[in-house]
């Protein structure tokens, strides 16, 4: 099976000379299609840096990154925005919906930036909202939705453009236990549909849902275990 993510020798450092901080010190990672990977680590272990690099939001200092067969290292900012739009669906800890914009319009956004026509956009966004069980909240604005509902809208937005990779950064960090299990159930269901998911978390019970768990310590992969084959 082809790898969705192929990272080799990724390093990332900030600052100059003596003040240089090495956030990542050589990470090699392969994620296959259909994989469900959890990245764990204490704060400062480099997991957010790794997530930014995997998400094509930031470039590595050295190393090689291929996403779905595309060499990311050599791309400029405008090409990266296209990659983010087509290949990656983001789910953030703080939901990051656009304020004063309805749930449906939020879900439509990735399609809007891709240039999909209005009618098709409406239909696909409505279908994505239905798949997270929020059809009845389509015309609500983010401040009229609960945290769990907002995160489900964000999941719908991440899914709507059919990306190769779902990238979730502490998706349940701001949710109560009921909403947490709702969102994790949704992600399980997406995994069952064959989607590739990378999730960053520091909670063991959340990580337990994944097939594979890696743990970062001081910018390197310190441990890797497989919950399921």
């Amino acid at each position: 099976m082809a790898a969705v993510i192929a990272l080799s020798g990724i390093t990332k450092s900030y600052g100059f000379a003596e003040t240089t901080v090495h956030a990542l010190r050589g990470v090699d990672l392969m994620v296959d299609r259909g994989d469900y990977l959890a990245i764990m680590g204490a704060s400062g272990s480099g997991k957010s840096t790794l997530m930014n690099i995997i998400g094509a939001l930031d470039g590595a200092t050295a190393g090689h990154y291929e996403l779905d067969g595309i060499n990311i290292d050599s791309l400029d900012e405008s090409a990266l925005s296209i990659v983010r739009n087509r290949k990656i669906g983001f789910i953030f800890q703080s939901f990051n919906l656009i304020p004063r914009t309805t749930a449906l319009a939020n879900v439509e956004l990735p399609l809007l930036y891709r240039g999909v026509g209005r009618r098709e956009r409406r239909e696909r966004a409505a279908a994505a909202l239905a798949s997270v069980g929020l059809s009845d909240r389509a015309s609500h604005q983010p401040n009229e939705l609960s945290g769990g509902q907002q995160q489900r809208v964000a999941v719908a937005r991440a899914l709507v453009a059919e990306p190769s990779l779902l990238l979730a950064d502490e998706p349940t960090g701001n949710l109560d236990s009921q909403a947490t299990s709702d969102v994790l159930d949704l992600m399980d269901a997406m995994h069952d549909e064959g989607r590739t998911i990378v999730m960053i978390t520091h909670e063991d019970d959340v990580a337990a849902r994944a097939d594979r768990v890696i743990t970062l310590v001081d910018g390197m992969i310190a441990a890797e275990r497989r919950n399921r084959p």
Partner: protein
Amino acid sequence: MNLLETLQIGLRGVGANKLRSALTVLGILIGVAAVIVLVAVGNGSSQAVTSSIEQLGTNTLTVRHGTFGPGGDGGRTQFKDLTVDDAIALADDVLAPDVQSASPVVSAQAACTYEGTSYSTSITGTWPSYFEPSNLTLASGTSFTNDDVTSSRRSVVLGQTVVDELFGSVDPVGREITCAGTPFTVVGTLEEKGSSGFQDSDDVIIAPLTTVQGHLTGYRSLDTILVQAVSGSAVDAAESEVYSILDDRHGTTDTSSRDYQVLNQASLLSTVEDTNQVFTVLLGAVAAISLLVGGIGITNIMLVTVTERTREIGIRKAIGASKSAILGQFLVEATVLSIIGGVAGVAVALVVTQFEIAGVAPVIMPVSVIGAFAVSVALGLFFGSYPANRAASLRPIEALRHE
């Protein structure tokens, strides 16, 4: 993403903070309205002055007594009066073929009464030939004649304002008024000329020269001689004939120190038009500055908006908005603000210019309307481009981290 969708996103941004948008729009509105109104006021006053000069007739020259302008009278020891003989000499067919008539003029200020009603006005003493070049026509009665002048009859012709003040609705022809203690018979009234901007040209009494000299001014120098050229194109030729005749009669040796001055209405008109043009441009420039300030207001408010919505920009970039999509969104917001301001400014200016401002009826120049509107739209694009570019250049991870 097409233009319509960009426009929708931009409009939503404008609507998101209505008070702030309204205040920014107000800045542009005031700028646009000020440009249109002030240029209209300048234009209106220019037209008023021009028409008042045209009422005097553009084929006339006015010879005034005394020296004016630089030089003063320092070089001269003796001032010769402007006399009736000068006027007769100017009308000479041989020496001044381009002069049709020359009318001596004296004027005096006097209080006139009719049956207890008193009114103070200016009495002009002249010859009957004065009427035609001054564009004066009779509304009723007759003018006085050369015979009246020779025998200093106390016959007067009244301007419409004087008629209204002294007689009201009574027909004044044939009645007697008293000016400075002397009784005069009204022989005619003048057609209304209307106010010509700064002075009321109907506020006059015209009487035979000799009568005014005899009863009011005494036999001093004439105030002016009104010279009529045979045609509009002969004014310049007539002017040089006037100079040569009067220089000869007054013994002028140095042309820079004459004891009289010739005013050419046509050249006065063009001077006044030039002055007014400068005046209008100045007014427009002051207003343009306020439009510029309005534009800076757009930059200011868009910078605030970009800072406030940094996180939103980060989200949009993370889900794949290109640099140009973000740029477009904020440019549209700025331009929408300036277009609304421009349209409202034009509307306000159209209403305001219906009223008289500082005694001037504004006359809108279409080019100022189109210009002010176009500039306001361009301002939106120009002053919006810096904040929009700043938004578009934000790095997504930093923007996302922004609280």
